[in-house]
């Protein structure tokens, strides 16, 4: 009985220390960046930045085609959208909840699925001079990447780009 009591106390202390950590997070200081590189001619490189400026929450979208050919020029985008604070905080929270162990698959090399669809993603959170960056690609269909792709999806939905057409079903939002 005493062992159960000790275990219960330990559990309570772990939960309360985790809550203390959460309380300190000021999402307003965060700047989230999503960078997607594909092998496609249109929307070859996409950069989305989410940040707060003078209490306004912004999404900055920059897209570049593979070259300046007139056929791909429609995918040359440089624009800014205003978003809701709640949406911004939701994405920041999703980022803080990511787990490092889930991200690394620790598989045998032979089990890795390598395809030629060529999507490389980078998710980065910066706070002043410090940053944490997750880079992944190729085996994008892996189940373990779901929380990371969920964040990409949330961000892509804010940009009003047809992400299903351009980046496959895993990052679709329409």
């Amino acid at each position, binding site marked *: 009985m005493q062992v*159960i009591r000790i*275990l219960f106390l330990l559990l309570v202390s772990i939960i309360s220390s985790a809550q203390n950590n959460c309380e300190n*997070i000021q999402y307003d*200081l965060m700047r989230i960046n999503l960078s997607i590189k594909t092998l496609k001619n249109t929307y070859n490189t996409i950069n989305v930045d989410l940040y707060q400026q003078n209490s306004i929450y912004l999404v900055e979208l920059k897209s570049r085609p593979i070259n300046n050919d007139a056929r791909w020029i429609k995918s040359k985008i440089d624009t800014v959208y205003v978003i809701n604070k709640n949406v911004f905080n939701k994405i920041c929270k999703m980022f803080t909840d990511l787990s*490092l162990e889930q991200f690394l698959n*620790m598989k045998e090399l032979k089990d890795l699925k390598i395809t030629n669809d060529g999507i490389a993603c980078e998710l980065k959170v910066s706070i002043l*001079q410090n940053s944490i960056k997750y*880079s992944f*690609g190729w085996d994008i269909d892996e189940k373990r990447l779901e929380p990371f792709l969920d964040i990409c999806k949330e961000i892509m939905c804010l940009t009003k780009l047809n992400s299903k057409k351009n980046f496959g079903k895993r990052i679709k939002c329409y």
Partner: protein
Amino acid sequence: MKLLKILLLLLFVFVCSSCFAQYELLQINLEIQTLKEENNHIRFSLYQEHPDTFFLGIKRNPALNFKDYTTWLKRDADTIIIISKDNFNKIAELSLRLSNLSIISGMCKTDYILINNDNVAVNFEISEPYSKISYNIWNPNYNTKERNLDTFVDICKKILLLAESDYKIFFR
């Protein structure tokens, strides 16, 4: 009594899983940049090349003097040390214990950030084929506890000790 048995079984499974964990695909990189002339840019890489042989590569670059380009030629030869699997696994386990939540909450404590003329920028990477996590931390040696960087600095110190480098040069 039944609950105690289940707890003991869970504990046993947890201990076993950590004992037999495989980290062979991991590569761990630590890059430190300072304003010092001698140890301006130093990079440590921990990786496995052959089965059961683990290496620690060290690359030191001096500060570039643009008036005298030969400074680049005066850099030390790259060094590779063979390390034990135990040491590699210990660092890998510690690295996987880094918590996003705790580090981000530490980053937000703006009162504890120090910017001075003796800056140290640390870039710590954990990578495996097609995935990589990078932590870029500025002056981790200042207000380490308050910024929740205890584990982070501990890993850096352990890598520097393995590389037979004096960690006090970078982390006081």
